[in-house]
């Protein structure tokens, strides 16, 4: 187990390195002087000269990278051109907003989708199965930004049950915060359920075919015990990996939902910064999301042996 964990941790290091090179290099690919890109068009000559010096622009590129990396490690991601705020503070603040929405949505999706997927697999080709498969394929095909818009139209504008514009943080006002979260979370849940149901169904089907399920039945266990004690845990492995991927993908993909419901989250920050050519923020967001994605997948992998102890063996 220890060996498995350490091998997995070590294997993340090269990826980490390449990711940071990629994020550094990407911004350098933009035509123009990096210093003026970072400081914006309105910066005066002195500030530019100072920035060129601190960024080491007179040095060779590898040195510039090391300087940048050194700053990053110390938590210095630069400052936003628009409001002068430190990028790290901005990113963390926005991330908290996105993360609470995403985590609630994915958590709910798993709670709904996994039992549905297993039930569909248990009665494969039955009426329930066909309904679940058809519904999940349908949900999967509806883009979140349109689904969100339709939910907004129905519950916010036509029925007037929920507030259409604005956002209140849960930390400031828990009740109002939750109310503002209902529609975006519902949008995300409907979409993710479609994806997770299909995976849970497929992996349960694979497991139900195996001899140890028949063995469990041969021991005289009831169908529900077979499904819960033997099938569920083994079938959850692939779904677990998928959850990691979904969490990571939502960090980028949540921008559309945040746009629909005007939520000041991380996704919106990235898009706005690209609009505003606020490259320090773009760079900071990219790095932050990539690292979070790596971290989430690392944690998912490290917990995987809970569902399948075989992976720790070589």
């Amino acid at each position, binding site marked *: 187990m220890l060996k498995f964990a350490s091998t997995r941790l070590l294997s993340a290091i090269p990826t980490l390195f390449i990711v940071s090179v990629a994020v550094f290099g990407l911004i350098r690919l933009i035509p123009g002087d990096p210093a003026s890109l970072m400081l914006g068009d309105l910066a005066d000559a002195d500030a530019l000269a100072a920035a060129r010096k601190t960024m080491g622009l007179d040095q060779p590129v590898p040195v510039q990278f090391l300087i940048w990396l050194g700053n990053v490690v110390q938590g210095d991601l630069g400052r936003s051109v628009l409001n002068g705020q430190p990028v790290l503070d901005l990113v963390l603040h926005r991330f908290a907003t996105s993360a609470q929405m995403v985590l609630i949505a994915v958590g709910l999706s798993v709670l709904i989708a996994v039992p549905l997927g297993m039930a569909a697999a248990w009665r494969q080709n039955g009426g329930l199965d066909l309904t679940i498969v058809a519904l999940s394929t349908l949900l999967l095909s509806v883009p979140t930004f349109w689904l969100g818009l339709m939910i907004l139209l129905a519950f916010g504008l036509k029925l007037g049950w929920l507030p259409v514009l604005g956002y209140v943080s849960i930390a400031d006002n828990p009740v109002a915060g939750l109310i503002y979260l209902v529609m975006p979370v519902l949008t995300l849940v409907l979409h993710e359920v479609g994806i997770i149901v299909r995976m849970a169904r497929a992996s349960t089907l694979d497991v139900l075919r195996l*001899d*140890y399920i*028949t*063995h469990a039945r*041969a021991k*005289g266990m009831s169908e529900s015990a077979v499904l819960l004690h033997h099938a569920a*845990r083994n079938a959850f492995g692939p779904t677990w990996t998928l959850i990691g991927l979904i969490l990571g993908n939502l960090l980028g993909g949540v921008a559309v939902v945040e746009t629909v419901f005007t939520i000041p989250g991380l996704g919106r920050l990235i898009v706005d910064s690209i609009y505003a050519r606020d490259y320090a923020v773009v760079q900071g967001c990219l790095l932050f999301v990539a690292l979070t994605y790596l971290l989430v997948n690392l944690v998912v992998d490290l917990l995987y042996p809970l569902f399948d*102890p*075989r992976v720790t063996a*070589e």
Partner: protein
Amino acid sequence: MSQSLVEVDGLSLAVGGPSGHHIVRNVSFHVQPGEIVGIVGESGSGKTMVARSLMRLQPPAIVVSAGDIRFEGRSVLTMTGKALRAVRGARLGMVFQEPMTSLNPSMTIGRQLEEPLKLQARLDAAARRAHILDILRRVGIRDPEGALVAFPHQFSGGMRQRIMLASAMLLKPSLLIADEPTTALDALVQREVLELMLDMVRSEKTALLMISHDLPMVARYCDRIIVMRQGEVVEQGPVAEIISRPGHDYTRELLQSMPVRGPLRSVDPAAKPVMEVRGLEVEYRAKAGLLAPKTMKKALHGIDLAVRPGEIVALVGASGSGKTTLGRAIAGLVDASAGRIFFAGEEVKPDSQAWRHYRLNCQMIFQDPFGSLDPRMKIREIVGEALRHDQQASRAEKEQRVRGILEEVGLDERYLNRYPHELSGGQRQRVAIARAVVGRPQFVIADEAVSALDVTVRAKVLQLLADLQRRYGFSCLFISHDLGVVEQLADRVVVMRDGAIVEQGNRDAVFDTPQSDYTRALLSAIPTLTRTETGVSLAWRFANSGEAGASEAPAKALQ
């Protein structure tokens, strides 16, 4: 006669509803308490589905369309879910074929064994534990306490099959159903596990229904045999009778298909070898952690081997003995780390001129008839490809040779434009043989070439191989774990173990007077067969020396 334990009466099974395709038709048999009965059949005989339907464990798509199954006088088919569950596990136990998938990978052995006890017996936790430890000890698990908290993947296949046996026998059922219980295991382990199973059912007075494709094995351990073919019972009766006086043509064919010792070819012992290896070694990198220094492990230790013109040399050994690696190293599929290969007296090295000559003159037949043919090519193209590098022959000549060789292996023109998936396993292996010999190679390596085939098909393919060898006179290195087949075909036998040769010699010498205990143990797992006028008679070699093999068996305990 007392009441039967199991009575199967006119059972028919169909796929996808009672009017669907029937896979089992009108099967009737019975099992008496404490009796040991074998169902023998080839693939597609329906034997597994019959066995599973006794516990109503057949896949949901397969339904009983007619007949009845009675267990201890009660119909299994009409039982309620609750009554059925009370019978399963407690009165009926089952051992599956594949030890790798029949235990839940994410649950400890202890918990898996505890489940039926919790369901069926009124015992407290301590009594359950004691009972489980006791049965684990009885099936020969060396560290039962450790096994309780271990996961299945930490055990070897043989050990897992012992654990399966423990699980099935935990509640002392009155019938144990064993579906190909040892087919996935090595010969030595196979015998140990079987004998353990027999000991246990005998001492518990449990009846045993053993499903197998292996007629000699069933004949050895069972009181009665039921022979099935294509969903029907063709014949049943006491072992001795069926074997010596079979009443049905199919049973006779099965018995005729059992390998018997064939005549030796006349090979000039002084002839220069066609192929010779000296001091051949193969190393592979042992799996190690990211930080551990890389270590090399030897798969072959300095092998010397020669094959003379027209000779069939068999390479035998358990899995992991290195026999396949040796074959692949000789073929050039695996790089040798040391040693030399000579072909027709000349040393062959990769990229040399001699290598090119060798490459076209040394062909191979693989084990898996599903994997060795390109699924996207027609049979004509598959065989024709082997002539691609023949510069002398014209297109028309090549085409003629492809048709000719296919005819020789028993596939007429209709097969030329078919794809591999449209052929049966036996037909595919015929194509593989045709491809290997169409270029008239001097040397053919056959790696478990008939192991994946059914008994009757295997006999025909073996015969074909022998015929082709006689016609074209190629030498052959025949790699097999199946000593019966080797006895029929080989002129010389080489026994391998742990990457080294433990014994080699003339076929008769090795089979009749083996020099090493290991060879003796391997041989004692298979019968000697003699054909009688109507059937065959089976006898067992070295009847008293089985223990020598058992103690040497490479059964791995907890790692």
